[in-house]
C-alpha cells in the first residue's frame, strides 16, 4: 500500500518543488531524477502485486476526507471565479451547481456511508500504473528539451515553465490516484484534478484561442463531472454504497444499477472525448505537444476509458451498455472519417485518438470477455504508439517549423532518424503485425460475437478510413526527395532518448504481447468473468503475427537502401529539368513539382462528420437518459 501512497504523493511533492525552482539546471535534474523514481516505483508496484493479482486497502482517514472536500470546494470556487473573469458563464454555472451538491452530499449522506476499502490494486490498475509511470515519465523527460525550444520559439512570453512542470507532475499524481481509488468520492476528487490540470495546460499559452479551448474542455469535463456527481448521489442515496467494487458486485448480482452506471459512463465519455464532446480534445491541440501526448492521448483521456472498462461487467446488453457502445462506435466511425480531411499532424493524431478511444469505449460497452481483452490491449498499444507519434510531431515542428503533414515533404532526407521513428509509429497505428491492428482484430471478432451488426459495420468502415489517412501520411514520410539537407543534429539529446525508447517499446510490446496477454490481461479478465471464452487470436495466429513482425523488422535491416541499379530521374512527362524537383512549365518557366495528399473535403469535411456524429450521439444519449430517467420518475 505504501507504494501506492508514494506514487500519489511523490509526484505531488515534485510538482510543488518544480513550481518553486526557477533555474534550468535544477529543474532538469529534478525532472530526470523524479522520472526515474516514478518509473521505478511503478515497476516495483507491478512486481509487488503481480503475483497476488491485487488487493483492497481500507486506508481511511477523516483528515483526508475533509482535505479532499476542502480542495474540491476551492477548485469549485476558483472555476466559478475564472468563469466570471473570462466571461465563460457556463463554467461558472456548472461549478455553482456541482460543488454545492457535492459538498452537501459529502457532508450529509455521504458522511454516513462507510467505505470499507478506499484504495485497491488489481491487474488493470497495474497496467494503467505502468502506462502512466513509464510513458508519462518519458514524456516529462522529453518535455525538458522541448520546453526549452518552446520557450525559445515564444520568447516574447514570460517563462512559464515552472508552472508547466508543476501541472505535469500534479497530473501524474492525480492519474495514479484515479487508477487505484476504490472509493468513488476519491475517484471523483482525482478526476476533478485532472480536469483542472488539463484546463490550465490547454490555456498554457494564454492566447485567446487557447483560453477559448481551455474553457471548452473545462465545460465538457464538468458536464461529465456533473454526471459523476449525480451517480454518486444516486448511489449513496438509493443504494447506500460508495465503492466501485460494490457497485460492480451489485451489478453482477442482478441489481439494476443501470442509471448510476449510465451516469458514470457518461462521465467517462466526456473525459474520453467521445462525440458529442470530442471537440474539446481537438481544441486541446493548442497546448504544447508534450501536453497533447501526455494528457490528450496516452493518459488523461485513458482515465475516461479506464472507468468504462472498469464498468464493463455491468454494461453489455442493457441501456447503459447500448449507449456506450453506440457512442463509441459512432465516434470511431466519424472521427476516422474526419481525420481524412485534416492536414495538421496534431489534428490527425487528435482525431485518431478520439477514434481509438471510441473503439475502446465500444469494446467496454459490449463488455464481453473478448471485448474487454481488446479494450485493454488497445489502451496499452495506443498509449505507447500515440505518445511516440505526438512527440515525433513535436520534434518535427520545432525543426521544420510546421506541424502540417504537407510540410513534412522529404523529411526522410532531412531528418532520417525522426522519419524512421514516425514510420514505425504510423505503422504501429494500423498495420498488420503491429499491436493496434491485433487489438482491432480482436475487437472486431468480439463485436461479431456479440451480435451487434451495426457496430461491426462501423468498425469495418472506420478501419477503411483509418487505412487511408495513415497511409497517406506514411507516404509523405517515405517519399525520397532529391537534395535534402540533413538537419537533425539540432534535436535535443533528451528528445532522442525518449523517442528511441518509445520506438523500441512500440516494437517490443508487439513482440511480447502474447506474454502480456496471458500474464496480465487474461488473469484480470478471469477475475471478473467466471467463464473463460476463447480469445480472438489462436496461438497459431499469434505466432504467424510475430513471424510477420520479425520479417517486417528484419527485411529493412537486411535489404533497405541497398541497390546496384542505375539511379535515373523521375518521370515528368518529358519536361524534366534534371533535378527531379522542377520541370519546364508553361511560358518556359521553371515550376517546382509539388505533391500533396488527398483530403476529400467534399466527402469527409470535418464539420459535416462532426455534425453527423454529434447529432447521432446526442440522439443516443438523450434517448437512453430519457428512458432511464423516465423509468426512475
Amino acid at each position, binding site marked *: 500500500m505504501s507504494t501506492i501512497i508514494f506514487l500519489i504523493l511523490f509526484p505531488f511533492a515534485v510538482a510543488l518543488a518544480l513550481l518553486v525552482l526557477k533555474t534550468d539546471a535544477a529543474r532538469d535534474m529534478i525532472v530526470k531524477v523524479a522520472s526515474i523514481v516514478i518509473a521505478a516505483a511503478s515497476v516495483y508496484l507491478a512486481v509487488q502485486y503481480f503475483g497476488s493479482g491485487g488487493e483492497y486497502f481500507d486506508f481511511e482517514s477523516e483528515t483526508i476526507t475533509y482535505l479532499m472536500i476542502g480542495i474540491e470546494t476551492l477548485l469549485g470556487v476558483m472555476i466559478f471565479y475564472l468563469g466570471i473573469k473570462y466571461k465563460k458563464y457556463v463554467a461558472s454555472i456548472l461549478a455553482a451547481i456541482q460543488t454545492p451538491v457535492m459538498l452537501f452530499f459529502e457532508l450529509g449522506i455521504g458522511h454516513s456511508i462507510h467505505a470499507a476499502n478506499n484504495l485497491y490494486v488489481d491487474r488493470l490498475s497495474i497496467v494503467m500504473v505502468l502506462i502512466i509511470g513509464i510513458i508519462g515519465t518519458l514524456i516529462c523527460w522529453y518535455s525538458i528539451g522541448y520546453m526549452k525550444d518552446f520557450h525559445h520559439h515564444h520568447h516574447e512570453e514570460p517563462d512559464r515553465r515552472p508552472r508547466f512542470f508543476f501541472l505535469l507532475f500534479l497530473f501524474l499524481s492525480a492519474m495514479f490516484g484515479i487508477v487505484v481509488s476504490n472509493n468513488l468520492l476519491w475517484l471523483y476528487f482525482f478526476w476533478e484534478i485532472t480536469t483542472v490540470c488539463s484546463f490550465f495546460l490547454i490555456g498554457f499559452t494564454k492566447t485567446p484561442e487557447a483560453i477559448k479551448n481551455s474553457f471548452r474542455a473545462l465545460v465538457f469535463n464538468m458536464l461529465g463531472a456533473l454526471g459523476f456527481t449525480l451517480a454518486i448521489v444516486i448511489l449513496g442515496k438509493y443504494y447506500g454504497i460508495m465503492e466501485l467494487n460494490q457497485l460492480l458486485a451489485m451489478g453482477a448480482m442482478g441489481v439494476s444499477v443501470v442509471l448510476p452506471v449510465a451516469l458514470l459512463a457518461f462521465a467517462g465519455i466526456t473525459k474520453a472525448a467521445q462525440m458529442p464532446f470530442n471537440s474539446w480534445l481537438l481544441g486541446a491541440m493548442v497546448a504544447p505537444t508534450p501536453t497533447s501526448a501526455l494528457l490528450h492521448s496516452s493518459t488523461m483521456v485513458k482515465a475516461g476509458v479506464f472507468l468504462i472498462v472498469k464498468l464493463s461487467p455491468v454494461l453489455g446488453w442493457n441501456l447503459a451498455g447500448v449507449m456506450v457502445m453506440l457512442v463509441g462506435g459512432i465516434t470511431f466511425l466519424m472521427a476516422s472519417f474526419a481525420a481524412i480531411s485534416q*492536414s495538421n499532424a496534431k489534428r490527425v493524431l487528435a482525431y485518431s485518438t478520439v477514434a481509438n478511444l471510441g473503439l475502446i469505449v465500444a469494446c467496454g460497452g459490449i463488455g464481453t470477455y473478448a471485448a474487454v481483452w481488446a479494450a485493454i490491449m488497445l489502451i496499452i498499444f495506443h498509449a505507447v504508439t500515440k505518445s511516440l507519434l505526438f512527440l515525433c510531431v513535436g520534434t518535427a515542428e520545432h525543426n521544420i517549423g510546421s506541424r502540417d503533414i*504537407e510540410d513534412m515533404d522529404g523529411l526522410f532526407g532531412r531528418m532520417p532518424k525522426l522519419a524512421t521513428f514516425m514510420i514505425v509509429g504510423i505503422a504501429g497505428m494500423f498495420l498488420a503485425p503491429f499491436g493496434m491492428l491485433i487489438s482491432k482484430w480482436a475487437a472486431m471478432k468480439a463485436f461479431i460475437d456479440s451480435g451487434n451488426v451495426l457496430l461491426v459495420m462501423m468498425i469495418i468502415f472506420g478501419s477503411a478510413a483509418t487505412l487511408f489517412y495513415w497511409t497517406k501520411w506514411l507516404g509523405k514520410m517515405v517519399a525520397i526527395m532529391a537534395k535534402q539537407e540533413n538537419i537533425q543534429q539540432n534535436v535535443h539529446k533528451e528528445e532522442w532518448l525518449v523517442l528511441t525508447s518509445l520506438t523500441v517499446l512500440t516494437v517490443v510490446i508487439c513482440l511480447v504481447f502474447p506474454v502480456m496477454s496471458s500474464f496480465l490481461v487474461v488473469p484480470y479478465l478471469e477475475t471478473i468473468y467466471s467463464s473463460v471464452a476463447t480469445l480472438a487470436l489462436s496461438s497459431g495466429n499469434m505466432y504467424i503475427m510475430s513471424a510477420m513482425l520479425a520479417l517486417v523488422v528484419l527485411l529493412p535491416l537486411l535489404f533497405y537502401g541497398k541497390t546496384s541499379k542505375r539511379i535515373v530521374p523521375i518521370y*515528368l*512527362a*518529358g*519536361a524534366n529539368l534534371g533535378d527531379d524537383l522542377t*520541370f*519546364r*512549365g*508553361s*511560358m*518556359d518557366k521553371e*515550376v*517546382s*513539382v*509539388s*505533391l*500533396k*495528399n*488527398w*483530403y*476529400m*473535403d467534399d466527402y469527409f469535411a470535418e464539420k459535416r462528420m462532426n455534425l453527423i456524429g454529434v447529432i447521432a450521439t446526442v440522439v443516443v444519449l438523450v434517448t437512453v437518459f430519457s428512458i432511464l430517467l423516465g423509468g426512475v420518475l
Partner: protein
Amino acid sequence: MGKRTIIPFGPQHPVLPEPVHLDLVIEDEKVVEAIPSIGFIHRGLEKLVEKKEYTELVYVIERICGICSFGHGWGYCHTVEGLMGIEIPERAEYLRTIWHELSRVHSHLLWLGLLADGFGFESLFMHCWRLRERVLDLFEKTTGGRVIFSVCKVGGVRKDIDKETLDEMVSVLRGMEKELKELTETFINDYSVKNRLVGVGYLSKEDAIELCAVGPMARASGIRQDIRLTGNGVYDKLEFEPCVETAGDCYARTLVRMREVYQSIDMIAKAVELIPDGEISVPVKGNVPKGEFMARLEQPRGEAFYYSKGADSKFLERIRVRTPTNMNIPAMVKTLQGCDLADVPMLILTIDPCISCTER
C-alpha cells in the same frame, strides 16, 4: 498553397496523341488552375511561301495536318482560285465536297475512338477505329493515300471517281451505318459513358460566344454556326441543317459529332446522286495576281480560315491558315478549371484538338 499539387501534363503523355503541355494545379483531383503551353509542333510552314511556287504549296498546306488534310488543300486552292478568278468545273466541286465529307466521317470516327480511349473504354475505341478503317479503304481506293490524299489542286482535282466506285462508296457507308448505330447507342445510352460525359466541361452559350468557340464545340452549346451554310462547295445544293445541341457539355459535343457522321453519310449519298459528268479540272497557268482573298471552310473540327495574298508572281506573298483548334483552345482552358483530373483528357479531347493544325 497548402494542399495543391502541381504536376506537368505533357508534352509526352499517353492521353495526348500530340504534344501540348499543361501545368496542372490540382487539389485532391480537382483542377484549380491549368496553364497551357503549346509550340511543340511549331514548324513555321507558312513561311514556305517564299520557297515554293503556289502550285507546289498545296502539298505543303495539305501536310499542315494529317487528319483534316483534304480540307486544308481545298481551302488553300480556294483562295488561289479566288485570287486568280478561276471557276472550277462543277464535277470538281462535287468531288471536293464528297471527299471533304468523307474526311469528316473519318475524323469524327477517329475522334470518337480517341474519346473512348480517353475514358478508358478500350473496346469502344477499337470498334470505332475498326469502322474507320473502311473509310480509309475508300480513301485509298479513290485517292491512293490513307491520310494524305494529294488530290486537290489549284483549278480542280487530280483524280476522278468513276460511277461504280461512287456507288460502292455509298453502299460501304450505308453498310457501316448499322454497326455505327450500335456504337453510337453505347455513346448515347451507356451508363458508364454518360457518367463520364454528361455535365462534364460545361460551356454555356454565352461563354461559347464570348470565347469565340467554333465548330462542334459551338454547336454543342447551342450556336447555329456552320460555315457550310455559306454555300461553298456544293453545300447549297445538298440541303442540310447543322446539328445543334444545347447542353454544352462533353456529352452534347459527342452527340453533335455523332449526328454529323450520319449527316455526312447522307450528304455524300445525295452528292453522288446529283454529281454531273464533266471535266475535273481547268488548266492553270501564269502568276498569281496582286490581291488578297479569304476563304473559310467547315472542317470536321470547325471553322477553318484561309488567306492568300498574291504578289503578281509564282510565289505568294503571304498565306495564312487559322485552324479551328486555335479558336477552341480558350474554351478548353476555361472548361478545364474546376474539372477533375480524370476529366482533363476528356476536355482536351472534346475540342478535338489538332495541335499540328494550330501551330503549323
